[in-house]
């Protein structure tokens, strides 16, 4: 009996230690970046492992406010996130509902037509040529439209409607003289709000974080989303691209923060919206993931 207890303690101990350690590894780098962004650079050099800054220095943030690309980046990212998420939700709702009608003629054909794209697609160059050909190259639409509907999410939405909306409710509405549009907006939509909330989060995070589409389809810097600006600045270490206005030059000469601190501030400002809403949304996305696993 004592042996068994010892084994149990060992399993529990290892679990707490390993999970706790992993959780720390996940969050500590982010905390450091936030701390470095408000830390005086000389303090950082003196002790880079210090997590709490001795004195707060918001110089890097003030400086960031003068960068044109930063402004335009924020604007583009907000725009594509809002527009893209709205469009994603609308399309998901509109298309998932008719696809749940298993007896609708042509439904199976349409569904296979859609699902096939999960297994094969044209690839990078044909997609690039398409974006040029459709005429959305170098417009925000190139950042919004490709990938606006994910087949996987469409299948999840269908499962959600099928499992949560009672067919009797729908039939009652039809008997009362409602047409299918009424059913969609008065019955299906209100009941689907939890699922739509989950998809909204995933879609918004996806648009906010993506930089691949912009790398391919945007050459005009004023249309660069935030992530691309961040990449130039932090990963490519290209500080010069931020702007060359006389005012900026002057400011750089006078009160400039160290490039390192500036980079940290840029990372924080880019990630902050996600970090702020994250704790409130966790409930939704875990539910969404579980929705997927039920379908298996």
């Amino acid at each position, binding site marked *: 009996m004592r042996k068994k207890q010892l084994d149990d303690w060992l399993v529990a101990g290892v*679990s707490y230690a390993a999970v706790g350690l992993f959780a720390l590894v996940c969050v500590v780098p982010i905390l450091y970046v936030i701390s470095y962004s408000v830390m005086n650079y000389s303090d950082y050099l003196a002790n880079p492992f210090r997590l709490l800054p001795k004195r707060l220095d918001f110089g890097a943030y003030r400086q960031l406010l003068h960068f044109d690309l930063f402004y335009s980046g924020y604007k583009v990212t907000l725009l594509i996130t809002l527009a893209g998420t709205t469009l994603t939700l609308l399309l998901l709702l509109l298309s998932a509902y008719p696809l749940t009608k298993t*007896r*609708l003629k042509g*439904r199976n054909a349409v569904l296979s037509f859609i699902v096939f794209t999960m297994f094969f697609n044209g690839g990078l160059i044909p997609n690039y040529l*398409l974006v040029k050909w459709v005429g959305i190259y170098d417009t925000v639409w190139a950042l919004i439209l*490709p990938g606006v509907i994910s087949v996987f999410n469409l299948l999840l939405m269908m499962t959600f409607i099928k499992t949560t909306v009672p067919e009797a409710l729908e039939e009652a509405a039809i008997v009362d003289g409602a047409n299918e549009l009424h059913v969609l907006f008065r019955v299906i939509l209100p009941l689907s709000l939890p699922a739509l909330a989950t998809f909204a989060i995933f879609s918004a995070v996806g648009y906010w974080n993506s*930089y691949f589409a912009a790398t391919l389809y945007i050459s005009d810097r004023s249309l660069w989303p935030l992530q691309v600006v961040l990449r130039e600045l932090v990963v490519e270490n290209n500080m010069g691209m931020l702007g060359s206005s006389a005012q900026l030059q002057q400011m750089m000469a006078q009160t400039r923060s160290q490039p390192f601190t500036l980079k940290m501030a840029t990372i924080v400002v880019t*990630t902050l919206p996600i970090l702020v809403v994250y704790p409130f949304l966790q409930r939704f996305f875990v539910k969404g993931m579980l929705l997927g696993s039920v379908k298996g």
Partner: protein
Amino acid sequence: MAGTKTAAGSARTGLHPAAAYALRHKYLYLLLLPCVVYFIVFQYVPMYGVVIAFEDFNFVKGLTGSPWIGWDNFRYMFSLPDFYRVFWNSLALSVLRLLFTFPVPIALALMLNEIRRLAFKRVSQTLIYLPYFVSWVVVGGLAVSFLSPTWGVLGVALHRFGIEPPPFLTDPAYFRPLIVLSSVWKDSGWDTIIYLAAIASINPDLYESAVIDGANRFKRIVHITLPSIRSTIVILLILRIGQLMSNGFEQVFIFQNGANKTVSEVFETYTYSLGLLSGRFSFATTVGLFNSAIGLVLLYAAHRFAKRIGEDGIW
């Protein structure tokens, strides 16, 4: 509801039954229209676009006017030493990644399941899901700020001890470990969710009778929890094997630089630089097409294998 009263409808309106059926369900078909148009334009047109792999494509002549060259691009590809290097890099990277990133979420989920203090469990879950929501650019930024030899944390720290910091970000030897570690950091926590759901659906009676039989916690993990989530593990493994030929563009592109290209050039980045940087659209499409074809074969093979060993497979 669909399919009822069709005959009555056509008798009343005097239309062809099919037309009457379509009219009756016009809203359903109208609702589907935007989605179908989207998939035609953004998925099927590019799919047709792969024909340029068999053409000597140029912009002026267009898709239909460019001269047909058959399999020439493929012959050229197989004669190119670069191609084999990219093939090897892609495969080595994704196999290595699979080897490390696949078991970690399983282990984490098993351990999370052993944690009885709810507060501890909730807080750790919140923290380990967090990196999933951070963009690859930011992960790249974190890597640079910690590992840069000149001003990164590690660099600054090592310099203080008089040690020259190794060039983690530019030395090809560190590229694969960096990719694997950053994948583990970003996705492992998130990937536990699906295993935790599978564990949550295990019948508690199984554990109770095991306790009565005197099985300790470790034995319960090995003999109950693991076998119960076996099919989830197998399905996820199949999906991952089906994706062995793709490394994803964003992560690799962030960690790639001139110095590590010998190991960091994978299919995605190679296609990008061939097509968009050098303008060799046809050849880039050929390489991309080869890559997706292998991917399809792998997915099918993994699926068949799962069926063979008595699992469900993916369709």
